[in-house]
């Protein structure tokens, strides 16, 4: 790991000021991606600004019928939170399946969303449920947030403070794990919202994306089996040594059907 200066502000305003002062700095949330990246010398920030001491980033609240999850809530906290379990059970289940026990004790929703790993679980739930990403500067709709591989709409100096979800008890995230890495080879979140169905796919390509044709199929009364014949955009899929693009497309249909079958179960 390259050397850096470690900074630990108590307030989000101080974190923003430090970020503005040190343009080569990195933010540190739970560190479950960041620390392996630093150890492998894939990044060399001048400063690491820890968000771990900022109380305002913690907690879960219900506001205007939306569940607002603080950016620093760990996966384990989200998975066991009584409000999340009651109002957004699909997100609790998703959080309980990220990484392993130890990773869930450290990794946070804000960190995962900001990192936007192409195989991360959370982006699929945010996109399928129509979540909003709340930052130090604005509120961003999930549809406009995830812009590509490890890329988001976040601007320099902008920090995620919370993620807000509509309450929804008809959503399900189904993950087909790579048996070696345990990451999602394909992960699909299906949500049935008042305004219609939404399907988000992770792990299959350069970044999370919606399957609009699949959504239309479900809204026309289709079921999981009908998704087998619905077209997918081949440009969204990539192949690697773990599976070809064709394989991932095939698995997307199967995993989406399983997620649909689990709705409201």
């Amino acid at each position: 790991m390259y050397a850096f200066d470690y900074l630990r502000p108590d307030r989000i305003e101080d974190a923003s000021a430090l970020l503005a002062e040190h343009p080569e700095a990195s933010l540190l949330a739970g560190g479950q991606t960041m620390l392996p990246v630093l150890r492998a010398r894939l990044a060399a920030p001048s400063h690491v600004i820890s968000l771990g001491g900022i109380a305002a980033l913690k907690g879960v609240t219900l506001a205007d019928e939306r569940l607002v999850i603080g950016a620093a809530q760990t996966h384990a906290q989200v998975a066991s939170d009584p409000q999340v379990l009651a109002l957004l059970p699909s997100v609790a289940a998703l959080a309980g399946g990220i990484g392993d026990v130890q990773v869930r004790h450290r990794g946070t929703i804000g960190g995962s969303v900001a990192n936007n790993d192409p195989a991360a679980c959370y982006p699929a739930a945010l996109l399928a449920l129509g979540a909003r990403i709340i930052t130090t500067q604005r509120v961003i709709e999930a549809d406009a947030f995830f812009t590509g591989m490890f890329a988001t709409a976040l601007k320099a100096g902008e920090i995620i403070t919370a993620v807000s979800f509509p309450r929804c008890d008809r959503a399900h995230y189904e993950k087909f794990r790579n048996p070696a890495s345990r990451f999602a080879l394909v992960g699909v979140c299906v949500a049935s919202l008042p305004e219609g169905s939404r399907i988000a796919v992770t792990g299959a390509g350069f970044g999370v994306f919606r399957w609009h044709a699949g959504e239309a199929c479900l809204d026309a009364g289709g079921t999981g089996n009908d998704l087998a014949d619905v077209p997918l955009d081949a440009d969204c899929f990539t192949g690697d040594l773990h599976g070809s693009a064709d394989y991932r497309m095939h698995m997307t249909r199967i995993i989406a059907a399983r997620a649909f079958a689990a709705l409201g179960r």
Partner: protein
Amino acid sequence: MVQVTLRVNGKEAELDLPGRALLIHALRDHLRLTGSHIGCDTSQCGACTVHVDGKAIKSCAMLAAEADGCEVTTIEGLGSDAALHPMQEAFRQHHGLQCGYCTPGMIMLALDMVARHGQLDEPTVREELDGNLCRCTGYQNIVSAILAGADAMAHV
């Protein structure tokens, strides 16, 4: 340098460390608690698992500075020279190790499982061993040891 104050196995420790120091290095190199092991460089093996404020974490994926003010428990904090902790004893009884390299991490994870679930069943143990690798045992005896250890802890 960063000033880090920890309680490790009940004892106060004050360390002056570079910002990039990992918790595992603080424990092994500065406090000479070498029971926690470094098995990989990718956060996959779990040999470095310790408890921070009662929760199992991988100490190779946490800066020592992040543990400032925290309570840390390592394998050295369990049992005594006279008597092993019931979970350690269960690993001995069930031959839950061969080379022993992964064992400290396995035991610290097992205690976290007991803390969260109390009584354990085999599917839970197998699922939650996800983040700890063993290249000797094939896991069968580790699963048996954790189930027996949890049982023994419930009857202490």
